[in-house]
C-alpha cells in the first residue's frame, strides 16, 4: 500500500510546492482549496521576522494591464518615490463576519466580502517631492492609482488604491509639519518575492 501511495504523494507534493523548494525558500504548505500559484506567491517571501524600516513607497498614476506581477512590472508604469513616509496603513484581506443566532444550536457565521484595507498614510510635508505631488493629485481625482511598496529585503507589493484627502496635520508648538492622506486599497495586493 505504501509503495503504491509513494508516487501519488510525490506527484501531489510537486503539484502543490512547484518551484518554491528552490534554495532560499521555505517549503510552502498551501491551505486546502487555495490554488498553488497565488499560495506560493504569497508565501515565497521572507522566512524570518522582518520590520518595516527602510521600506520605500512609490506611486504611479498608471494602472497595469493585468493585476499581476507582469502587469505591474511593465515599463508602462512610471513610479515616483513618495518622500519621507512616516506611516503607511495596514493592507491585505480582512472580512467581517455575519452571525445569526438560532434559538437552538450554535451561532452560524458567514464571511462577508473582503476589504483589502487602507487608512492614513502620513508623510513629512514636502511640496516639491515628486511622489507627494502625485499623491496630492490622486486625492483630487476619483481615479485609481498604483502604489508599490518595496521592503528592505527587496520583497515588493503592488496595490491598487484610491487616495482620499491630502490634509496638513494639526499645528502646535514644536510639531513637525506633516501631511495625512487616506489611502484605501481596492484589490488583493500583488506580492512579489525578493529576487
Amino acid at each position, binding site marked *: 500500500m505504501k509503495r503504491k501511495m509513494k508516487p501519488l504523494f510525490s506527484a501531489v507534493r510537486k503539484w502543490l510546492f512547484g518551484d518554491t523548494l528552490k534554495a532560499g525558500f521555505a517549503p510552502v504548505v498551501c491551505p486546502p482549496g487555495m490554488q498553488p500559484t497565488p499560495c506560493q506567491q504569497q508565501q515565497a517571501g521572507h522566512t524570518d521576522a522582518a520590520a*518595516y*524600516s*527602510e*521600506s*520605500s*513607497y512609490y506611486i504611479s498614476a498608471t494602472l497595469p494591464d493585468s493585476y499581476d506581477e507582469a502587469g505591474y512590472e511593465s515599463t508602462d508604469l512610471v513610479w515616483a518615490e513618495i*518622500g*519621507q*513616509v*512616516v*506611516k*503607511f496603513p495596514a493592507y491585505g484581506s480582512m472580512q467581517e463576519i455575519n452571525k445569526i443566532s438560532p434559538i437552538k444550536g450554535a451561532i452560524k457565521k458567514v464571511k462577508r466580502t473582503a476589504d483589502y484595507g487602507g487608512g492614513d498614510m502620513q508623510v*513629512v510635508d514636502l511640496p516639491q517631492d515628486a511622489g507627494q505631488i502625485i499623491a496630492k493629485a490622486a486625492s483630487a481625482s476619483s481615479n485609481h492609482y498604483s502604489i508599490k511598496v518595496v521592503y528592505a529585503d527587496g520583497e515588493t507589493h503592488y496595490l491598487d488604491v484610491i487616495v482620499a484627502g491630502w490634509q496638513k496635520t494639526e499645528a502646535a*508648538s*514644536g510639531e*513637525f509639519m506633516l501631511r495625512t492622506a487616506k489611502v484605501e486599497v481596492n484589490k488583493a495586493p500583488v506580492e512579489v518575492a525578493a529576487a
Partner: protein
Amino acid sequence: MSGTLIVRTLLVADAPLLAVPVSATWIRAGVDLPLKTESPAILVLGVGSVPFNRIKAGATQIHSERVQVYVLSRDYEQIKTILRLVRAAVLDTHGTVAGFNVIDITLDVESPELRDEPTGLMAQSRDFIVRWTG
C-alpha cells in the same frame, strides 16, 4: 551633538549678548570651564536628542535635541539679562546655521536659581528644543 553647535554659533554672533559684555571666549560648548574663566560665562550643553524616525531614514536625519544654556555670573541681574538676550538670540531661527538645517528652536524649562557660596557665583539655565536636519 549638533544642537549644541547650532546654539553656540547663534550666541557668539549675537551683538546684544556680546555687549553685556559676554566674551565669545567664555561662551563654551560642553562642560569644560578652564581655570581663570571670567564671569559672566555661558555653557551650552547637550542634554539629549530624539530622532524623528521616518520609515526610510534617507540621507538626512531629523533630530529633536534638548540643549541647555547655563549662565554663570556674580551678578544676579546680569544672569537675568543674559538669559533674556539668549532667548532673543536663539528663538525664531530657521535655515542654515553652522552647516545644519534648523527647522525651529522652541523654549523649554528654566532651572532654579543656584548659588555657590565659596565662589560667590550664581547660575541659572534655560533649555531649548532644537529641531534640525543633517
